[in-house]
């Protein structure tokens, strides 16, 4: 066993060495670093693409890093330290652990680097110089409102809602979407920064699906075991929604009696809206988020300009659109056909 632990430490040391950047910036070159949660998710892949294209266009150096899994804080810390060593001008960060990364982010800022949180606000939000993100609460609120309007007032009062969230540790994005949905649906959310403190009898339960198809299926099956009459499903993202659909199909509930809502706007998700699997999804714009981030770093490197947040918010809102083929009164939305022009991944 002892040797096993020794091997383990040796292994981590190797992993750290592998995480070192391959090229260091020349003095005078502007270097932008992007650190995503993983490199597996198409949302992050799209960001990398958008940032790389923008960097090329502006003629600056660009480096991408990623954690090994969602929630992998250590690799992100290493990546920030490497970017400090490489003399980066700015870091675009999608934090896996929004609290634990803060001291390391502070180190980068102390070294004069502009740190912009993309997609996921840090805790506290001002731990980064700026945040470019989807208004996740609004994204949730839109699909929650859509579900309530679609059911109608009476049915909404008697709804049975299943929640498929991402992670026990309650990451900000996860909580905001979930709480936004509840707000939109008309559930008393109590503390908007906490999930699970609500006592509305319409909530069947929350399962942690980890944002993947497998998790979506397992979680949905468990919630159907709790209450087979579920007729509204909130999912954190579209892969989770696809998994939930498989579980509903297996239970013979794929007859349109269950509303599935989601967030993301990835192309497979938009096609699932078209096929009637997902009732409505809130689309976000990762490419825009990343390219705006690169532009902000370049502006900062040239003359020290700091990016400003949107009116009335503490972050810069990169936009969110409701996608559904069954529009409801009072909520602006685009069809899946229109969304296919805008989707990513």
């Amino acid at each position, binding site marked *: 066993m002892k040797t*096993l632990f020794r*091997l383990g430490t*040796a*292994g981590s040391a190797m*992993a750290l060495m*592998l995480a070192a950047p391959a090229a260091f910036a020349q003095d005078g070159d502007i270097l932008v670093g992007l650190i995503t949660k993983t*490199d*597996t*998710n*198409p949302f*992050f*892949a799209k960001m990398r693409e958008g940032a790389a294209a923008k960097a090329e266009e502006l003629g600056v150096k660009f480096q991408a890093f990623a954690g*090994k*899994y*969602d929630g992998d804080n250590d690799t992100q810390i290493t990546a920030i330290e490497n970017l400090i060593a490489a003399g980066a001008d700015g870091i675009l960060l999608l934090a896996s652990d929004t609290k634990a990364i803060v001291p390391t982010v502070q180190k980068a800022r102390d070294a004069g680097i502009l740190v912009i949180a993309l997609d996921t606000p840090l805790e506290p939000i001002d731990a980064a110089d700026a945040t470019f993100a989807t208004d996740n609460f609004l994204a949730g609120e839109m699909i929650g409102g859509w579900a309530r309007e679609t059911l109608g007032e009476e049915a909404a009062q008697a709804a049975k809602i299943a929640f498929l969230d991402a992670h*026990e540790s309650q990451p900000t994005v996860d909580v905001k979407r979930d709480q936004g949905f509840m707000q939109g649906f008309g559930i008393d959310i109590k503390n908007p920064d906490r999930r699970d403190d609500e006592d509305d009898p319409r909530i069947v339960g929350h*399962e*942690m699906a*980890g*944002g*993947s*198809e*497998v*998790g*979506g*299926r*397992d979680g949905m*099956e*468990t919630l159907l*075991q*709790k209450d087979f009459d579920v007729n509204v499903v909130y999912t954190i993202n579209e*892969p989770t929604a*696809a*998994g939930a*659909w*498989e579980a509903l*199909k*297996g239970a013979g509930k794929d007859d349109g009696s269950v509303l599935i809502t989601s967030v993301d706007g990835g192309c*497979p998700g938009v*096609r*699932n809206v078209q*096929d009637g*699997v997902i009732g409505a999804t809130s689309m976000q714009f990762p490419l825009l988020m990343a390219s705006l981030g690169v532009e902000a770093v370049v502006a900062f490197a040239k003359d020290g300009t700091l990016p400003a947040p949107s009116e009335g918010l503490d972050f810069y809102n990169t936009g969110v659109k409701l996608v559904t083929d069954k529009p409801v009164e009072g909520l602006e939305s685009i069809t899946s056909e229109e969304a296919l022009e805008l989707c990513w*991944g």
Partner: protein
Amino acid sequence: MASNDLPQFATQDARLSRRVINLLHGNPTIIPLLVLVLGLAVFSSVVGQRFFHPFNLSLVLQQVTIIGTVALAQTLIILTAGIDLSVGAIVVLSSVAMGRLAMDHDLPPGLALALGIAVGSGCGALNGFFVTMIRLPPFIVTLGTWSVFNALIQFWSGGETIRQQEIEASAPVLQWTGEALRMGAARLTIGSLLMLLLAGLLWYVLNRTAYGRHVYAVGNDPNAARLSGIGTRRVLFTVYLAAGTICGFAGWLLIGRIGAISPLGGAMTNLDSITAVVIGGTSLFGGRGSIIGTLIGALIVGFFRNGLALAGLDVLWQEFTIGFLIIIAVSFDQWLRRIST
């Protein structure tokens, strides 16, 4: 004389405990089976009807199918005192291979399926090559290939999911393992059935063939095995090859379960499979354990997760309980080893 009686009692006692120890030592499945039965009893009394409902029982079987199959592969490796950290990546890589070959390269779905499983075999062969020919510790080899296979998954899939509807339209054979046979309220999927058949086959090989005996022998004492004329390298290599092939097959089961082919997920599959093997009474030190124990181990994990969720307990208690089960299982294994030498 009373004083003469005492030692007599003691020896009888000793004989009984020795018998029990020998029984446990010879049948590593007994303890996991007890844990499973106890767990079922507790959950059915706490949760009630819904837990023992045929639908729920068959559901848990569905939920453990993939991890159970991977754990079967992991059992072979751990019996030889090795460990394979790359199993989860092989599963996902094989499923991505099947999907991409069928959808992007327009191969006949049956051929894409066979090639996808062959990709799993290739990964296993690579692990086996480094372990037997280059003689590196399995832990290090598979730590490395885990990263390598993960990178290949990303290269090949571009991080993109192939949707269930697209596969259904052009390569439905890939989803066939997700079809369910209905028996009253229970739903037994083809995938679960295949896992049970595979377990039966592996049980037969390990317990009824010379090769199976060799696997145990190599795990128990590789030097003694070599001296008694067993080709230890060949046995080791075939074990890694078989494990990779089984993981490739698990890739097919994964598509059946989620309908789609996704580069996500599988991050914890390696550790989950080791958990099932250890809780199932197979020793991490090699040479002792069983296929049936591993199946029971996977079921224990599945039923504990399901039961705790239905009982309305926080997710964290699931992790807590399963963590404790691992430690208890390994302590027990250690104690048995100490006492029976």
